């Protein structure tokens, strides 16, 4: 992949630099992975030194953490939270479950591949990933941001129809108000 960093304008560079060093995370504690977030953010691993801090609402958040398997029911919520986040936004998916369903691969009500429903920037493997891995994942995201490659929101918008089709396929009762975001 081509390194875009050198082709950035000064303004873009500053923007990306600040984005990189200030990641407000929206932790969506779906599965067992949620237990790793506190560990990551508190004294032992101290993610705040990287500029990572929690945000309580999607409006303020930069990063959406999907921490584990997603039931179709929760997927609906995830989609909504994701869509409410403001550009630029990033998604980090935790654990095997978000990659291929993991141990729930044949469950009737979980999704297997998160990428089909919302775009993901970084996957962190493991079941569950330890905080070290999480921080490594964050660093990877930061690199990506700095390079200007984290175009999560744009991807979603461009392929909205595809994502929507996938979402509709899983979520049978799509009774979500479409507020035209």
């Amino acid at each position, binding site marked *: 992949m081509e390194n875009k960093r050198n082709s950035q304008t000064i303004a873009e560079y500053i923007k990306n630099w*600040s984005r990189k060093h200030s990641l407000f995370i929206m932790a969506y504690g779906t599965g067992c992975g949620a237990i790793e977030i506190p560990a990551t953010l508190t004294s032992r691993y101290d993610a705040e030194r990287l500029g990572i801090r929690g945000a*309580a609402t999607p409006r303020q958040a930069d990063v959406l953490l999907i921490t584990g398997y997603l039931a179709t029911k929760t997927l609906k919520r995830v989609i909504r939270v994701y869509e409410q986040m403001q550009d630029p936004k990033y998604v980090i998916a935790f654990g095997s479950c978000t990659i291929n369903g993991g141990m729930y691969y044949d469950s009737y009500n979980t999704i297997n591949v998160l990428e089909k429903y919302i775009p993901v920037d970084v996957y962190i493997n493991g079941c569950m990933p330890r905080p070290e891995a999480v921080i490594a994942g964050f660093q990877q995201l930061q690199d990506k941001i700095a390079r200007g490659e984290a175009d999560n929101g744009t991807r979603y918008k461009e392929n909205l129809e595809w994502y929507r089709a996938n979402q509709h396929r899983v979520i049978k009762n799509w009774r979500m108000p479409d507020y035209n975001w």
Partner: protein
Amino acid sequence: MEGIGLKILGALLTTIMAFAVGMTYGGITRKLTARVQNRVGPTIWQNFIDLVKLQSKKTNIYHGVMGHFAPMWIITAAMTVLMFIPVLHPNSTWYSTWFPNLTFHGDLIFLLYMMVFGSLGMALGAGQTGNPNSAIGVTRGLSQMVGFEIPFVLALVALMVQYKTTSIQDIMAIQDQSGVWMMFSNPFSFLAALFASLGMFRYSPFDIVGAPAELASGPVSEFGGKYLGVMMTGGSIFAFIKLTLYVDLFMGGAYSIPELLIKTFALYMVPVFYGWVSPRYRTEQAIRYFWGWPTALGILGVIIAVW
């Protein structure tokens, strides 16, 4: 009209300084908090980074005109109050050149009311977003305000009574003349005001207004991007304003910027320290807290002042 130009320049300088100091203090707090918790913590410039990021973010939505105005109310209030507050001691050399602004045209009670201006505007904006959490946060914030205003006002009344003036410059000048700071000549009032400042800064234990897990950060829960950025700026300026006001009123003001920084920082550490060691109060507990010992101290202060 070179006076006007200079004044505008001075006003800009004051604003920038207030902004910078406020932001830096926030960063330092974060760092210190992290150290206290045995963490490395972010850099002390982290707040600036956050601000730049917020401004760089796209702001997709707003919830109507009051939502749009909300950050404006805050920054307007912050800038206005800043213009009317003497940043440095009137006798100091720097003051007359750069920081006189409009300080002779307002007094303490005006400032008290002007400081509310921002919160009320913010509350309106938060209300319009339609998020129930915002409204709940606002009600908590306003209730808490009623709580801490009482000791605060008691302290101010003691001050005004003691010095027979409501003008901040005069208060500073009298402290200067007598050589005794208010915080020593009437320690009870100072203590009451100090307790009130805990609530004003909304650090723990008085941070239920924007309880992140419960209320999704309360009033600001629908604001992101540029709105949040402007709010942060306003908040920083306000932090500076409150500290400066305390320094002016209780510590005889500052003659130079370093002195100001030292005094304000020392004051600032009080709520921060208090926050480190305290869990969170519920709103009614917070209000009762302020209506308890701080109010008693304030009344004592007034009695002493009257004597």
